[in-house]
């Protein structure tokens, strides 16, 4: 009977300790969120979210909680990718064509360990793990999109120019997770009237402009050329607001 009560009290203590560990883990997770929100919100972001894994986030160095001696708290952040709109749809495509968000969130795991597992002879510590995703905190400002031509802005007939598109926040930190759409806009005046076709990937992060006009067949075939100047507009949605970059006065040569 003494053994029975002793076992009961021992398990009561175990439940108490587990409750404490859960509380400590949840608190530490909120501290990581708060730290990120304080330092990564743009503006005025003081740290770059892209360097999250290298930064000194709360719990990265394991520590003993001063209020609960014997409980050690440790936080590990790792990279993780998600799909837009969801993995169910996107994993149907080859890896190179999937719409991936890989830089705007981190997988954070908080481990609280205490005591030792006395149900066996090993020296394994008792642990509680809590895992959650911490996302890039956003501000009210729109992203800045920059479109660059690789090579000359004069494009010969049937020639192709690769396009490099980048987005940054107001602090100049890269935002590599946006998806882009492209519009070729014909120029105005005597030098205008140019047109071309854009061949881009599903996420729009890689694109090429070709001096050709395709017909409406499937697959499309070249039907003509739009001589003159045109603009290439690149648009992304960030926090529901459109952000746009323009490469102006592209000269489509005859």
């Amino acid at each position, binding site marked *: 009977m003494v053994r029975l009560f002793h076992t009961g009290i021992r398990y009561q203590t175990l439940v108490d300790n587990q409750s404490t560990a859960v509380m400590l883990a949840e608190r530490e997770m909120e*501290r990581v969120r708060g730290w990120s*929100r304080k330092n990564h919100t743009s503006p005025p972001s003081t740290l770059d979210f892209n360097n999250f894994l290298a930064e000194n986030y709360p719990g990265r160095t394991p520590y003993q909680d001063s209020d609960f001696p014997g409980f050690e708290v440790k936080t590990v952040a790792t990279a993780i990718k998600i799909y837009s709109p969801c993995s169910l749809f996107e994993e149907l495509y080859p890896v190179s064509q999937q719409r991936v968000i890989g830089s705007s969130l981190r997988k954070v795991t908080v481990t609280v360990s205490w005591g030792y597992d006395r149900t066996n002879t090993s020296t394994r510590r008792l642990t509680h793990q809590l895992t959650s995703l911490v996302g890039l905190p956003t501000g009210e400002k729109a992203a800045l999109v920059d479109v660059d031509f690789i090579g000359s802005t004069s494009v010969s007939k049937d020639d192709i120019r690769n396009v490099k598109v980048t987005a940054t926040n107001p602090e100049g930190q890269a935002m590599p997770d946006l998806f882009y759409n492209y519009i070729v806009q014909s120029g105005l005046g005597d030098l205008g009237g140019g047109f071309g076709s854009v061949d881009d990937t599903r996420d729009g992060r890689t694109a090429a402009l070709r001096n050709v006009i395709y017909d409406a067949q499937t697959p499309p075939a070249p039907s003509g050329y739009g001589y003159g100047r045109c603009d290439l507009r690149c648009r992304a949605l960030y926090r529901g607001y459109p952000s746009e970059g323009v490469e102006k006065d592209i000269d489509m040569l005859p």
Partner: protein
Amino acid sequence: MICSPKRWAFTLLESLITVFLVMLVFGLVAELLISAFQVTRFEREKMQAAEAGQLALNRIQCEVRESCKVEIGGTDKELTLTKFNARYVDDSRLLTNRFRYLLKIHYYVDANSTLIRDVEDLFNGGTQTHVVADGIQGARFEWAPDSDNLVTTLSVSVRGQLRSISSEVCPQAFIP
């Protein structure tokens, strides 16, 4: 004369000693049981108080996360949250209606040690009062200096002793 066969039995003294020993053993077992039940009852009361406080903390945490404005007043003893009224979520998608349908939530502990949640409808007018938890001796709300998280501490009474439970939450408020 026919004599019955000799039968063994306790003498009065032996019986008294036996009764005494049995009572002693029962007394020891009863003492053990009483002590164990006392410990169990104390732990249960402690857990019940902690659970009531924890439920209140969880409710506050959830509401802080969905609030667009978080204010601390009443010398750190009152919390005021401003959030969107989910009843008008379709209408408030229009930019002009963005801040039209708001609720103001007010958390505080009244004189009867009850954690109260007042809900003020800023669009329709009127205030509703909800009881969140009983037996809360005090509440304290403060900002964590390292992370700007909201730290909520509730004091609960366990058999006359005050115990405090606290939680930390990262608000998503975007109105300063």
